[in-house]
């Protein structure tokens, strides 16, 4: 079943065409990554889906409903954690729910506990490490009531070790809750390791040049990174990115 469907999106800023007839879809419970060179209009895509911008042509359909220009239809995790410094971690993870209506601190507490943030429930964001902040930001997105989560290069600012740890953690929590996820990244490895399907984007104007089904079964272990098939996969995608 299709959760989110992006149909023939075109967007220009003045004479600069950023998207040209971009179409793709995300199924319910699917983890889809968008992979593209930097400056390929990934954030424009997110701003369109998030309702911050209106498309010049085409439409965005979420659960059968047109959401062009409707803010708050999706749940969002930005590149920086963007946790409000005057709110405790618990209050921060509840923010997404709070903006939409009822809050459920019981579930929030449980999730924080599971994410190893149980002792930090009443701490302020500056008391947490970078990885912990990103975990809190993801829990905030997960707790938000919208049916799909958009993740915008969430681990790009983290160091290598923390990033690996976070990817593993994300997979764990994803397999438990099975939320529908649209993930933007520029790391090929990250995309293969995490997603069911990868959309390869050309640079301006952005278009999906290739769709790639990731052939690995879940649960995926860290050893996968060294697997021959994984490397072959990486090579393929690398070529696909280069030859456009």
């Amino acid at each position, binding site marked *: 079943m299709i959760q989110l469907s992006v149909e023939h999106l075109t967007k220009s800023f003045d004479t600069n065409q950023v998207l040209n007839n971009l179409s793709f879809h995300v199924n319910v419970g699917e983890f889809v990554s968008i992979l593209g060179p930097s400056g390929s209009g990934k954030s424009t895509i*997110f701003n369109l889906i*998030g*309702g*911050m911008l209106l498309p010049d042509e085409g439409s965005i359909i979420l659960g059968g409903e047109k959401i062009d220009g409707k*803010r*708050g*239809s*999706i*749940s*969002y995790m*930005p590149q*920086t954690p*963007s946790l*409000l*410094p*005057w709110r405790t971690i618990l209050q921060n993870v509840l*923010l*997404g729910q*709070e*903006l*939409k209506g009822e809050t459920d601190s019981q579930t929030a507490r449980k999730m924080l506990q599971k994410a190893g943030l149980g002792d930090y429930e009443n701490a*302020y964001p*500056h*008391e947490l490490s970078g990885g912990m902040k990103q975990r809190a930001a993801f829990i905030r997105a997960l707790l*938000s009531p919208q049916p799909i989560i*958009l993740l915008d290069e969430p681990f790009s600012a983290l160091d290598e070790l923390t990033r690996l740890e976070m990817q593993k953690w994300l997979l764990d929590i994803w397999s438990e809750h099975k939320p529908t996820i649209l993930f933007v990244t520029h790391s090929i490895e990250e995309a293969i390791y995490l997603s069911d399907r990868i959309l390869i984007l050309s640079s301006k104007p952005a278009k999906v040049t290739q769709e790639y089904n990731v052939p690995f079964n879940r649960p995926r272990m860290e050893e996968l990174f060294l697997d021959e098939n994984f490397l072959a996969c990486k090579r393929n995608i690398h070529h696909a990115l280069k030859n456009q």
Partner: protein
Amino acid sequence: MINVLRKGWRPASVLLLLFIAWELAVNLAEVPAWLLPPPTDIVQEAISGWEGFRFHLQSTVMLSLLGFAIGTGIGLLTAVTLHLLPFIRESVYPILILSQNVPIIVLAPLLVVWFGFGLLPKLIVITLVCFFPITVAALDGFRQTPDEFKHYMLMAGASKGQLFWKLELPYSLPSLFSGLKISATYSVMGAVISEWLGAKAGIGVYMTLASSSFRTDRVFVAIFAIMLLSLLFFGGILLAERLLIKWKSRESAVK
């Protein structure tokens, strides 16, 4: 408290030295008391004249507090209005700056002509000096809200009201308190100036009477009272800031 003592002993000893030098200089040069009384005279007058002075002090405190409250209210209201309605901001902001260029000393007697000797002209004077720092500080705070926070809030579906109450207002609090600190000290000044114009009681009245009868010691009592009062108001705002912005003090404690 220990912190206050640790940080406070240096300025306190400088002050003490200054007073000692003053006392010695006045005694050695035999300056007449009506020209410049020694600090001991001033302290004596403060103690012996306390009964008469208390009444004036009370009146000034009440007036400053009331004026400060009104000034803060109007300052905040102006800031919020200007922030939420950019069209009005563009047309009114320059005029607000002009309002601060009108010398209060000139304006105050006019206010008396217009509104009489009652409470109203006095409150207008205090409000005029108080509201501006608050408006500017709050507006700056609202405007400096980082884009990453705003972007998240908007993507997550925050309405304009939610954006203001949940993001911009809490974000501007530290900046707002800087404005409040300035206004709190200004409010005492404003109250005294407004009392000069004509009032039944207040430090301003006491001061005018004292200086016209060459009671220089009393003038100094009034000056020190004003300084102390400003300091107290400032401390009060500082305390409120500590209580309201807990996350900030914990942040600096970590660093």
